[in-house]
């Protein structure tokens, strides 16, 4: 393991835990599962600079740590399914889509994150009533995914050079 990459991944992990925790203070809007998903910005940045292995590790640690903080098996299930689904689709797309389409990769990630959460809900309640929330979750994923994706793209434009020089050379 490269020490500079290790430092960068630790920073991204800390950042994603902080963002995720802050986000949990946002009051519920009445539709379960609808969240800004801001920690996806960190996942995208990590996929761009550190690759799949480090990103999977950061995600798994983030899910574990935040679930230890909030402390329920249910929240761990939702978080894990959302993250695994989002990671699976984004790590495939990022290897064959150009950088200008980070926003689209992000939307796909958000869509699959929410599909993962619906799957977790279906497993927990042992029926498919959660499908009622599918259209609302798809709409919110498109909006929040585009937002986090464009944010990651702007961050890449502004900070990409510095991050590469300091941590990846």
């Amino acid at each position, binding site marked *: 393991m490269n020490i500079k990459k290790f430092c960068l991944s630790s920073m991204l992990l800390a950042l994603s835990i902080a963002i995720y925790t802050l986000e949990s203070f946002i009051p519920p809007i009445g539709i379960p599962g609808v969240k800004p998903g801001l920690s996806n910005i960190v996942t995208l940045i990590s996929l761009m600079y550190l690759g799949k292995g480090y990103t999977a590790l950061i995600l798994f640690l983030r899910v574990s740590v935040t679930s230890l903080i909030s402390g329920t098996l249910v929240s761990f299930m939702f978080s894990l399914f959302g993250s695994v689904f989002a990671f699976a689709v984004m790590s495939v797309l990022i290897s064959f889509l*150009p950088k200008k389409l980070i926003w689209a990769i992000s939307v796909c990630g958000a869509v699959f994150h929410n599909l993962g959460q619906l799957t977790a809900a279906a497993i927990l309640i042992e029926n498919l009533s959660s499908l009622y929330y599918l259209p609302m979750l798809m709409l919110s994923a498109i909006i929040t995914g585009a937002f986090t994706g464009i944010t990651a793209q702007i961050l890449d434009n502004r900070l990409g050079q510095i991050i590469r020089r300091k941590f990846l050379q």
Partner: protein
Amino acid sequence: MRTIFNNSKFWIGLFSAVAAISIAAIVLTELNTGTDVLIFYKDKLIYTMKLSENETKRIELDEGYNEIEVKNGEVYVKSADCKNQICVNSGKKSSAGSAIICAPHSLTVKIENDGPADASV
């Protein structure tokens, strides 16, 4: 390699289509008023209510309780002791096909229509 996937327009089109279908599905569901409230624990039906009759029912489970109220043609979870309180925050439902879910308690409050057109579960 130039493929259709490398084109922004493909993705904008795809996401617009998904968004349009989602909006249509939301509107169609909202238009379809329900009549019956079915309460499930996992996949087992444990209690039914009528949307036309005001009633409050406290469901006790090993996992905890949910107090479910039907009032003025709408159903909602009045209170519950689950940790995430998502069921309580889900608001009032009245359309057929809608549902309130309490994942920590494996509880589902489902609204259906008993009309002749009903072909759902």
